[in-house]
C-alpha cells in the first residue's frame, strides 16, 4: 500500500511537472510561440484533407484553407469511393479553384485515415505535407508562420496547435478542451525539446522527402499520428512545436460521451500498438524512457484514477495507522495541484480565445474532475480489452454538423 502510494505520487508529480512545462518561466512560455514571420514565402505545401461522410463541414473547411495568405500551396482532398455525398461536395469546391485543389479517391477496401493519407502521398508536389481534418478551421496566416518556422529552425516536422473550442457544450467537453489546451500549449513542447514526440493528428507539417523516406503512415495503426511521430523521432528528425492562440486549428469535441469514449479508446489502443511495434527502442536511453513513459501514460493514468480514490476510501473508512493513512493522501497532492492549475488554465484559455468563462464552468471543472478520470480509465481498460481480443477496427468519431446516421453507419 505504501509503495503503491509512492509510485502513484511519483507518477502524478512527473505528469504534473511535464504538463506545466510551458509555464515554468516567462522565457519558456515565450519560446513556445511561433516566431514572427519575415514575409517570405519559400516553402511549398501540399495540404492533405481526408474526408469521410463529412459533406456538411468539408466545404467550409476548404473555403477557409483557400483564404490562406501563403502563395505556394495545393489542397488534396481524399474521398472514399463509397462516399458519393462527400465526393460531390469535394468536386464542387474543387471546381471553384481547379489550380489549387485536387480530389483523390481512396479505393482501399478497409478505410481509415492513415490509408487515405498514403493514397494521396504519390500526388504530393509540395516540399512539405500538411494534414488537416475535414472539420478543421484553419487560420489564413498559419502557412506563412509554418513556412518561416521551417526555414528559421531547419526543422523536419512542424507541429502547430490544435484546440477544441466548445468548452461550454458540456462538462466533459470542458475537460476535453482543457486536455488539448495543456497538451498543445505545453506538454508537446517538452516532448519536442526532449527528442521524443507523439505528433498530433492534424496541423502537422512534414518535409515530403522525410515522410516518403519513412514510407508514409502506418495503415494498420489506430494512432497513425503518434506512430509517425515516434518513427520520425527514432530516425532523429527535428521536430518543432509552436503554439499561437490566434493561429491554432479549431476543432470541436466529440458530440457525446459515447463517441468521446470511442475516440479515446482508439487513441489508447493506438498507443498500445505503437508500444508493441517497438520502433521507440531505437532511441537513446533518455528518450527511450520518455517514450515508454509516454506510451504507457494513459494506462498509468487509468490505474491511478481508480487506485487513488480507493486508497482514500480505505484511509477514511478502514482502521489504518494514521501514518499510513496520511501516506495514501500524498498522491492526491499533485492531482489536486493539477486541478488548481487547470483552473488557472481555464481562465487563461478564456482570455486567450476571448471566451467568457463563467462560474458554472469552473464548477464543471472541479466537480467533473473525478468522473472524467473515471471515463479515461474506462477508455484505457476498453483499449486493452480490444487490443487483446484482436479488435483493431477504426471507431470513427462523428462530428456535429455531419449527418449523424451516415457517420455511425460508416464507423463499422
Amino acid at each position, binding site marked *: 500500500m505504501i509503495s503503491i502510494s509512492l509510485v502513484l505520487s511519483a507518477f502524478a508529480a512527473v505528469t504534473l*511537472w511535464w504538463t*506545466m512545462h510551458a*509555464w*515554468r*518561466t*516567462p*522565457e519558456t*512560455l*515565450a*519560446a513556445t*510561440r*511561433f*516566431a*514572427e514571420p*519575415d*514575409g*517570405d*514565402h*519559400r516553402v*511549398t505545401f*501540399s495540404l492533405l484533407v481526408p474526408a469521410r461522410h463529412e459533406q456538411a463541414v468539408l466545404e467550409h473547411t476548404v473555403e477557409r484553407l483557400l483564404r490562406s*495568405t501563403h*502563395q*505556394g500551396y*495545393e*489542397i*488534396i482532398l481524399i*474521398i472514399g469511393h463509397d462516399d458519393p455525398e462527400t*465526393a460531390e461536395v469535394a*468536386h464542387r469546391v474543387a471546381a471553384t479553384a*481547379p*489550380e*489549387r*485543389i*485536387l*480530389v*483523390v*479517391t481512396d*479505393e*482501399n477496401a478497409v478505410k481509415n485515415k492513415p490509408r487515405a493519407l498514403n*493514397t494521396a502521398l*504519390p*500526388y504530393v*508536389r*509540395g516540399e512539405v505535407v500538411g494534414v488537416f481534418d475535414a472539420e478543421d478551421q484553419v487560420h489564413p*496566416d498559419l502557412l506563412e508562420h509554418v513556412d518561416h518556422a521551417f526555414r528559421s529552425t531547419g526543422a523536419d516536422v512542424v507541429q502547430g496547435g490544435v484546440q477544441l473550442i466548445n468548452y461550454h457544450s458540456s462538462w466533459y467537453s470542458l475537460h476535453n478542451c482543457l486536455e488539448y489546451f495543456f497538451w498543445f500549449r505545453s506538454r508537446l513542447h517538452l516532448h519536442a525539446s526532449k527528442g521524443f514526440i507523439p505528433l498530433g493528428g492534424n496541423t502537422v507539417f512534414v518535409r515530403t522527402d522525410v515522410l516518403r523516406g519513412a514510407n508514409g503512415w502506418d495503415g494498420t495503426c489506430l494512432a497513425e499520428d503518434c506512430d509517425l511521430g515516434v518513427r520520425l523521432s527514432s530516425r532523429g528528425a527535428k521536430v518543432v512545436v509552436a503554439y499561437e492562440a490566434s493561429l491554432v486549428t479549431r476543432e470541436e469535441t466529440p458530440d457525446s460521451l459515447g463517441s468521446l469514449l470511442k475516440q479515446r479508446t482508439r487513441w489508447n489502443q493506438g498507443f498500445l500498438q505503437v508500444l508493441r511495434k517497438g520502433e521507440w527502442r531505437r532511441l537513446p536511453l533518455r528518450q527511450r524512457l520518455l517514450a515508454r513513459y509516454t506510451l504507457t501514460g494513459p494506462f498509468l493514468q487509468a490505474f491511478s484514477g481508480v487506485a487513488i480514490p480507493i486508497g482514500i476510501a480505505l*484511509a*477514511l473508512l478502514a482502521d489504518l495507522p*494514521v501514518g499510513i*493513512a*496520511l501516506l495514501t493522501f500524498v498522491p*492526491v*497532492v499533485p492531482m489536486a*495541484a493539477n486541478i*488548481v*492549475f487547470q*483552473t*488557472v488554465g481555464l*481562465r*487563461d484559455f478564456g482570455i486567450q480565445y476571448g471566451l467568457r468563462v463563467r462560474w458554472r464552468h469552473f464548477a464543471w471543472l472541479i466537480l467533473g474532475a473525478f468522473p472524467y478520470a473515471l471515463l479515461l480509465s474506462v477508455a484505457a481498460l476498453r483499449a486493452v480489452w480490444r487490443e487483446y481480443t484482436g479488435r483493431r477496427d477504426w471507431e470513427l468519431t462523428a462530428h456535429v454538423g455531419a449527418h449523424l446516421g451516415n457517420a455511425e453507419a460508416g464507423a463499422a
Partner: protein
Amino acid sequence: MTTTSESQQTTAIIPKARGGVVPASRPRLPLPDPDAGQRLARVRRRRLTRREALLAVGLTALVLLVLGANISGYPMINDDEGTYLAQAWAVAHGHGLAHYTYWYDHPPLAWIQLAGLSWLPGLAGSDGATVATVGRIAMLPVVGAVLLLVYVISRRLGMAVWSSATALVVFGLSPLTVVMYRGVYLDTFAVVWMLAALALALSPHRNLWAFTGAGAATAIAVLSKETIVVALPAVVLALWQHTARSSTRPWAVGGYTSGLVLVGVFYPLYATLRGELFPGAGHVSLIGAWQFQLGDRAGSGSIFHAGSIANGLVRSWLDHDWFVLLGGLAATAVCLFVRRLRPPAVAGAILVLVACRPSGHLPVMYVVQLLPFFAIALAGVLDLLVKLTPAGRSRPAVLVALALLAATLVAPRWYSGNKLAVTANYHSGYVAAARFLREEVPDRAHTRVVADDVLWLECVDAGYQPDRVIWFYKLDLDPGVAATLPNGWRDVDYIVSTPALRGDSKTLPAVNTLLTNSTLVARFGEDVGRIEIRRITKEAP
C-alpha cells in the same frame, strides 16, 4: 489501388514560391518577449557568484562560531526548550508526537525536524553539559540556513553585496540574536522556512516550481510554529511584485496556492483521521486547541503598560540590543515606502503590530521571528542611503560616517553582550542537579520523579522510566497522569524544584502539596535561580 477523380493527375500548378517580395503589410503579432534579453541580464546579476557564496558562507561560519561558543553555558535554559526536546525525543523513539497526549498546542513539524537533527550533537560530544543544552547544538545548522537566507533574500531584493553582508552580520552578531537563536525554539524552524519561502518567491528565473515551493515552504513554516502565519502577506506581496508584468503571474499564484494549501491541509487531515478535528467529550481536538490559543489563554498584558509581563519582556529584549530593535523598527517604517524593500518591511510591521495589541499572549521567543526581517530592513536602508548619495567623493564619505557611527554606538554594546554570551555560565545549577539525579539517586528505574521539562529528558537519559518522570504541570492538568498515581502524591519519590516549577506552582495545587510534603536533599545555586532536589515525606499526614 487508387485513382484520381478526374483525368487530371495533379493540380495545375503550385504557384512559384516567392522570395522576399511580400511587403510586411499585415499587422504583426507582438514579438514574443521584447525585454527577455534585459531580464536575462538581471537574472545573471542576481545569481550568486562563487566569490559571493564564499563571502556569505564565511560570514555565516563566523557568526556560528560566536553562537556556538559556550552555547551550553548561556543563556539559562528555558523550560520550553526542554518541552520541545522531549517531544522530539518522543518522535525519534517512536512514542508518537509527544510522550503525553498530543493536544494540538502547536503543530508538530518543528520538533519532527528537530528529531531529524538530533543525531548531530552526538558528533560534538556533550562533556559538562546537560542533554538539553546539547540539543542546542542541533539548532546550529538551522541557524546557519537562516543566516544564508538573510543574505540571499537581501541580494534578491536588489541590495548590493556589502549591504547584504551587513544584513547577515547585523542579524547574526546582535547580542539579542545570539541569546535567542541559541535556544531550542520552534520559532527558529518557522523562520527558516518562512525565509526560504520569501527567497523562493523572489526566484530570479521566476520559475513556477520555485513559486510552488514557496507555497509549500510557507505551509511548513506555519506548521512549525503557527504564529508566523502573520508574515504570510510578505511572501504573497513578494510573489505578486516579482511576477508583475509577467505572462506567468496567474500560474505563479496557482503554484503558490497549491503548495500552501496542499501541504498545509495535512495537519487538519491528521486530526481528522484521528477523529480529533472537532471538540468533543473525552478527547483533545485541533479546533478546541485553537479556541484555547486564541481566546482563553491568559494574556501577558500590553507592552506599553509598565509592569506587565509583555512590557518586562520588551525591556529585556532592549537590554540585550536596542540597536537592532529600534533601528530595525525605524528602517521598517522607511522600507514600507520603497517598493523593492517592501516585503520584509511588511513582515516586520505586521509582527510589530501583533506584539502591540492591547492584550494577548506575548511569548519570550517572539522576537526570534522579528529579528531577520528587522536586520534586512536595516541593511536595506543603508543600501538605499548609499545608492541615493551621488556617486563620486561623497559616497565613500557616507560609508566612513556609517562605519564610525556603528563603531561608537553599536560596537561597544555588542562586544560586551557577546562577551557575556561566550563566557558566562548560567547553567552550572542544572548540570549539577542532572549529575545528582544521574549518580546519587539509587534504583532509578523504580523511582518516580516530578521535574520540569528540561530535567525530564535528563532523567530519562539517566535511566529513569519515561512514564515515571512527570512534567510537574501534568499532575494537575492531565487526568491521564493523575490516574497513574493511585495513592496520589504519596506515589511520588522526588520533586525537583526549579525556577520554572516554582514560577507556576501557585496555580498548581498538586505541585504545591508535593513541595510542602518534602524535605530538601540537595541544593544547587542560590536565590531565585536555585535548584532543589526534594524527597517526598510519604509518612506525613
